[in-house]
């Protein structure tokens, strides 16, 4: 039976996390520790309980997993100092690594998260050398000519899009303008106002250089995209096309879910995501059956 434990950690012991322990008998340090980083302002259970499901599935495979709240999110108190944004995320993730190291004797880590959690996972993996793997769910994406072609083909086939265009002259004019741009211009254009949320991705050259540096360091990178990321990513090979020239050295793994929305709302979709993450993190292991969860004291 898996055990879960509540942890209070960080300098002022005000960060809250849940440690899911691997099955009894798993040798300490046989797998890296896994940290799940908040998706936006959602607390550590993740959208639709995604982080709980991932934590328990990975723990069943021998990974100690910590899902926690950054300061000001969920159950963690806001910071009392002026540190904010990326700097606070880095410091608190390092605090989480220290807490997991102290609790389970691990010295290396895999960071993962959805959306802003993916952005933080990548950023921190680049900086902290204890990180040996990062899983980005709907993280940065860069448009390609192939993206643009599929995007417009899909729009042309969509009855919803036609109805909207015919009902709104301004939208129709905007569409005509876009169609008259070249595919390359369109591939590099900023997302339109229809974007459901604003995402600021790093410049592609920097993202590529960071990937190359991490691959060189031996970090395993896993990029998972859902169809819900349709404004930025819409076909399986888009990552390869966008990062042509990047030598993966067998350390880059890309998954694409063409039927799934951004938060994997349907249970069967969430199960597919969890299975893909487990498979990516345990490439040589046979799938293990689900293990029920118990908890030990605080």
């Amino acid at each position, binding site marked *: 039976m898996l055990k879960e434990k509540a942890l209070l950690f960080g300098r002022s012991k005000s960060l809250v996390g*849940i440690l899911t322990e691997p099955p009894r008998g798993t040798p300490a340090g046989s797998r890296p520790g896994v940290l799940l980083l908040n998706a936006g302002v959602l607390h550590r*259970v993740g959208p639709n309980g995604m982080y709980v499901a991932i934590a328990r599935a990975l723990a069943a495979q021998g990974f100690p997993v910590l899902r926690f709240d950054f300061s000001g999110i969920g159950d963690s108190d806001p910071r009392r100092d002026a540190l904010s944004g990326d700097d606070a995320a880095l410091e608190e993730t390092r605090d989480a690594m220290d807490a997991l190291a102290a609790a389970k004797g691990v010295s290396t880590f895999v960071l993962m998260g959805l959306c802003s959690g993916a952005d933080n996972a990548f950023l921190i993996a680049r900086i902290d050398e204890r990180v040996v793997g990062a899983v980005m769910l709907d993280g940065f994406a860069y448009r390609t000519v192939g993206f643009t072609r599929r995007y417009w083909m899909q729009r042309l086939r969509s009855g919803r899009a036609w109805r909207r265009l015919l009902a709104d002259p301004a939208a129709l004019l905007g569409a005509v303008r876009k169609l008259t741009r070249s595919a390359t211009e369109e591939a590099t254009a900023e997302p339109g106002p229809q974007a459901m949320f604003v995402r600021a991705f790093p410049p592609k050259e920097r993202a590529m250089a960071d990937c190359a540096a991490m691959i060189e360091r031996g970090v395993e990178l896993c990029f998972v995209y859902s169809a819900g990321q349709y404004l930025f990513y819409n076909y399986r090979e888009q990552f390869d096309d966008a990062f042509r020239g990047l030598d993966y050295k067998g350390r880059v793994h890309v998954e694409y879910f063409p039927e799934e*929305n951004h938060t994997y709302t349907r249970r069967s979709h969430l199960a597919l995501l969890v299975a893909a993450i487990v498979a990516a993190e345990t490439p040589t292991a046979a799938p293990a059956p689900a293990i*029920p969860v*118990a908890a*030990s004291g605080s």
Partner: protein
Amino acid sequence: MTPFYFGSSKRPLFGVYHPPQARPVRETGVVLCAPVGHEYVRAHRLVRSLAGTLAKSGFHVLRFDYSGCGDSSGDAADATLASWIEDVGTALDELKDTSGVSKVSLVGIRLGATLALLASRRRKDVEGCVLWDPVVDGATYLSSVEALHHAFLAAEYPPPTGEEEGDEGLLGLAVGARMRADLAALDLASTAGVGARAVALLTSEERPEYGRLRDALAAMPLRSTHLAVDARADWDDAGRIIATFLPQQMQPAIQEVVSFVTAGAS
């Protein structure tokens, strides 16, 4: 604030204990019963804020997650209404053990309110019960959440291409066949044997079933009040499915809860 697990080792529940932050320390504790599913996510900050406000008013407070929800063990697909009602009782006993209080008030939101009132049956240690926008008619609630689930997915990308097969959950919450049957048969207005000495129905919107519940509460041997608050939650609005409540929006309701619980504890 102490996050911890409690209850049986077979079904541990996650909770957060908030010790009193002011004197006089009240002799009645408060257990908060959160909503479930997407409403749990919407209300998480609100529930935390309510716990903090009550602790600052001198109460021992425990908030917790039901089996299969949040950080608690288990899969919601296996839960029944009875198992969640039992969880409320387990939390109530835990707060008494932890804090030494002999009486507890229950404050529930949406289905949490329903579970709170049902958990008070046959108990003699429940002082007050606050029912904040309670689920009165389980079948209406179920069909409303089903409609929201489909409306949410229809507005997402990619849009669904066909009917759902099997249990795809409701906005992320697994709902097993037994829970569906329990909810379909649920009518809070027909509850008998409520143990609370006082019940406050706190509503942010008017629903036809609230009239029936008011009448039912008025006929019970307890003190009942109805508090209509200006803190709209828009539970059935498909446009607000993922809108988290900011505690400041809910201040009028939080203040009513604190006043009611404090009146019962003094």
